[in-house]
């Protein structure tokens, strides 16, 4: 669907925790301007996949290629400067710093390009009125949005979003979906992990469906929900944690 060559390629990625293979050969690719949904039951390895791509853990097998170069095992701070960033499933802001200081750190250390306009960034995410409050005083949905603001302050080319929609009300959900689409429209590549299928439907161009550490479906959400294997994994018989 996208004529652009992929920006991020994940091939046969393996991550073990002890004897357990949380990732067992995941493969997918992501192009600039594209929003790829990553869905799957609880414990299927979606967050682990983001963790490995973003440098939190080195891979135990397989390859992650970004802009044509292998990046497996490179530390998070170096990847951030090269344009890979993410949000966290349970938000992880700098709790004792103010909202503005949170994004200032990221803009200062994680952005290799020109300094971004942080006031505009905070305003676009409806965080401007909270700018001087300590992040610890924000509610969970606000903290997730702050994670997103911090990621965007680094000027990423690849953005990995882990369950950003949970905790947002319907109006906020709609605005968040529009924002992610706008980012893709400006050329960013997005990987969106989400359980809310309405949100996935609204923001993604295509989806990859994972189970037990590996992908088994790739295509549009509309075809995914008609796929017998996808139905089986989501509705019955799938290993849940």
């Amino acid at each position, binding site marked *: 669907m996208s004529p652009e060559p992929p920006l991020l390629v994940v091939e046969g990625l393996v991550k073990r925790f002890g004897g357990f293979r949380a990732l067992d050969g995941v493969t997918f690719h992501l192009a600039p301007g594209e929003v790829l949904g990553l869905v799957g039951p609880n414990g299927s390895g979606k967050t682990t996949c983001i963790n490995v791509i973003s440098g939190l853990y080195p891979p135990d097998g397989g390859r992650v290629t970004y802009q044509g170069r292998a990046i497996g095992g490179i*530390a998070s701070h170096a990847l951030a400067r090269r344009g890979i960033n993410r949000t966290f499933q349970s938000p992880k*802001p700098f709790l*004792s710093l103010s909202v503005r200081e*949170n994004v*200032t*750190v*990221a803009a*200062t250390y994680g952005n290799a390009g020109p300094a971004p306009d942080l006031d505009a960034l905070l305003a676009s995410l409806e965080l401007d009125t909270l700018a001087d409050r300590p992040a610890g005083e924000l509610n969970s949905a606000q903290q997730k949005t702050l994670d997103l603001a911090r990621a965007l302050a680094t000027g990423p080319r690849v953005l990995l979003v882990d369950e950003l929609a949970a905790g947002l009300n319907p109006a906020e959900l709609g605005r968040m979906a529009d924002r992610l689409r706008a980012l893709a429209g400006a050329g960013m590549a997005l990987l969106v992990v989400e359980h809310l299928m309405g949100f996935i439907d609204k923001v993604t161009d295509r989806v990859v469906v994972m189970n037990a550490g590996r992908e088994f479906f790739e295509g549009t959400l509309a075809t995914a929900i008609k796929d017998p294997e996808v139905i089986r994994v989501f509705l019955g018989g799938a290993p849940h944690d």
Partner: protein
Amino acid sequence: MRKRTLLPDLALPALVLIAFAIGPYVYSNELMLFNFVMFLALAQGLNIVYGFTGYLPFGYVGFYGAGAYGFALAVMHLHAPPLVALAAGGAAALVLAVVLLPLLRLSGAYFAIASLAAAQAVYEVVSNPALENVTKGPYGVSLSAVFAPRFSYDVGLGVLAFAFLLVVWLRNSRFGLALQAIRDDPVSAGMAGVSVVRGRTIAWLLSALVAGLVGATFAWHISVFYPDTAFDLGVSIFATVFVLFGGATTLTGPLLGVLILYGVYNAIGITVPQYFQFIYGALIVGLVLFLPNGLVSLLTTRGIRVP
């Protein structure tokens, strides 16, 4: 960033420095004033590592002892002039800090205890009678050749000014913000582009350097001392209590902690130690229960910025 708030941040340490520079002219107990200066600097040094990275080294005195012996060895064996020996003291603490860098992989209580064990190990080496030719072992050193109480007092003020400046810089710089980010959440800090290892290493080395310079100035000022004084765990405990009592990560907190608690100690601790221990204990228990982030949190939790 925040240029407008730099004035109070500089005025406060300047006032303290002026007061302690005048002190010896109006108050005869110079050793007590020197001890104040020493603890003011040590508390800020500990503040650099604890307040800005969250690591609390119980063995902080190890750097102080290393500084004292670095000074003494340079004077005894190299006949170095005092200011050169002072640099040797700082360098000795830095070398120890580099050797102990792997401790930063530990966290919480494990780090605290391991740093204590490390300080104890250095003490054992220094006080070993077999090394009498080098360190004078347990018999202590005498540096009467360089004894200069006034000059060393003033140099102590210089070390204190250096410690104050470091903390003012951390309080007002992007680097200090990055350190606090690491302290709050190292994973997120990495994702924000901050090199966690580099940040912690710099804070650790600066903190050790301050303690080493203080230890060297102490060695110079009193000029006769024993391993038990240079590696006295009480130094760690005092510095830690002062920082926690006043409130870490600020310039004001550790400063208030020293002025109040060390003031109380000097007022009643030496004459009526039994009351002192009671009051000290009550103060600390009360603080831990009601103000776990120190005195300054009375203001900071109300959104008031203190230097």
